[in-house]
């Protein structure tokens, strides 16, 4: 086992990519993801990693180069944020249905306008339906661990899908945390060499990415849907083995004092650490509250989520994304669907908080829980509420 050291999370993520022996890294810098690809460029330039580092002209080109490199049989990594991720959008739908595995870290950031480099989840929610497996990290150690896990899962022949690890921009990407990096031997043992099911080879020609006429398209998409749903087994097995090897255990959803709690807060990403402090404070005040955090966002772990919240009366769901004109945020909508018409299911209230880098404090979490409990008694007028918004 490696040593636990204080290191910036972006640097640790880049080191994890090095340990995973990425072979091709097409990358374009964008705040707050830049330190990851900057450090990888350094690692490759110093000869510490035998990889092709492609400084592309845009994110659109980055994702295109990623697809080509995986098709040629390479282990591929890239990283992006916000507007950059959106510029990739056209390409993002392609490797997933084409079954081209790769790993991308998204340092989550708000979408313009107004221009914001700060953290929320709007960039990734734009890409909710691209058909990639997606996880959300809570802290630096988890970011590193999820990157290693992602290579293992994505390249598994039963899965063969691209995977995104979401880390909150700045609040995770730019903080220095105590992180334990495993040794090269341990990582080599956990992530076997990439053996693609097929690759571009002139001796055995195939056409990848052909036209899907109306008589084929639906079947191609349904095949993809089944693969991502069934990837669950591989995701769980890879986490189980991770726990055995590295001693840190991960699940699709994480509960904190949620057992028997009447009201449960639902979060994703790094605000969950503040949420735990809020739960501790409210528990001390005698309130029966708990926290459930979603780690695996796609495929959505409906079964695990229902099990983690089955005794709750009220769920207060926090979205770090405001989709104008929608009935509520994407996480809120997802959970309402998960519980739709299930007898005895909790009342779900949707809140939007922490947009564009605004802090979600312990007091805000208390406010959210209090409001959710009030709304359970008296139905609110709106289907969601933006927390901490100033009127005048």
């Amino acid at each position, binding site marked *: 086992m490696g040593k636990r050291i204080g290191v910036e999370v972006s640097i640790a993520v880049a080191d994890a990519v090095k340990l995973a022996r990425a072979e091709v890294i097409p990358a374009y810098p964008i705040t707050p993801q830049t330190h990851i690809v900057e450090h990888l460029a350094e690692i490759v330039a110093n000869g510490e990693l035998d990889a092709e580092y492609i400084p592309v002209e845009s994110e659109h080109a980055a994702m295109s180069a990623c697809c080509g490199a995986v098709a040629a049989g390479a282990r591929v990594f890239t990283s992006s944020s916000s507007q950059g991720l959106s510029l990739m959008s056209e390409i993002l739908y392609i490797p997933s*249905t*084409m*079954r*081209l595995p790769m790993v991308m870290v998204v340092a989550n950031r708000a979408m313009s306008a107004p221009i914001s480099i700060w953290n929320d989840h709007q960039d990734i929610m734009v890409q909710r339906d691209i058909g990639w497996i997606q996880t959300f990290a809570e802290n630096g150690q988890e970011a590193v661990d999820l990157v290693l896990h992602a290579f293992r899962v994505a390249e598994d022949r039963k899965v*063969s899908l691209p995977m995104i690890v979401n880390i909150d921009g700045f609040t995770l990407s730019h903080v220095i945390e105590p992180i334990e990096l495993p040794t090269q031997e341990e990582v080599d043992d956990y992530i076997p060499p990439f053996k693609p*099911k*097929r690759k571009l080879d002139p001796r055995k*020609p*195939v*056409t*990848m*990415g*052909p036209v*899907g006429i*109306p*008589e*084929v398209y*639906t*079947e*191609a998409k*349904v*095949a993809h849907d*089944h693969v991502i749903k069934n990837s669950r087994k591989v995701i769980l097995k890879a986490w189980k083995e991770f726990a055995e090897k590295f001693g840190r255990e991960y699940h699709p959803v994480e509960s904190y004092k949620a057992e028997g709690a009447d009201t449960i807060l639902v979060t994703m990403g790094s605000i969950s650490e503040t949420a735990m402090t809020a739960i501790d404070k409210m528990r001390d005040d005698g309130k029966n509250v708990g926290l459930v955090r979603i780690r695996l966002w796609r495929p959505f772990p409906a079964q695990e989520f229902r099990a983690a919240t089955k005794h709750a009366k009220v769920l207060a769901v926090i979205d770090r994304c405001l989709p104008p004109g929608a009935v509520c945020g994407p996480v809120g909508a997802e959970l309402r669907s998960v519980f739709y018409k299930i007898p005895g299911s909790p009342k779900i209230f949707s809140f939007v908080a922490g947009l564009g880098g605004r802090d979600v404090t312990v007091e805000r979490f208390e406010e959210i829980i209090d409001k959710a409990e009030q709304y359970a008694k008296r139905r609110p007028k709106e289907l969601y509420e933006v927390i901490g918004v100033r009127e005048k």
Partner: protein
Amino acid sequence: MAINDAIIGWKTITFGCDVVEPGNSANFRTGDWRSQRPVLDKEKCIKCGMCWIFCPDMCYSQTDDGYFEADMEYCKGCGICAHQCPKDAITMVPEEG
């Protein structure tokens, strides 16, 4: 029951929707959605080959007697041949049915 026009099932479709048979585009008939087709008047034709040169689908080829004939498997009915013909020997006629 509604007719299912799928030509492959989701369980049997190739990995990543790859085409694994090289060169099989030759098997694909691409001229089946044409709305009009070129008809040649051999009385007017001077065998100059302008239709053969201008056809964007390269579906014209010369026959043994020197005339040029369009391959209806590939002709899209664009009418460029008729437009370019210096003798107005090609007429576009609507496809029926």
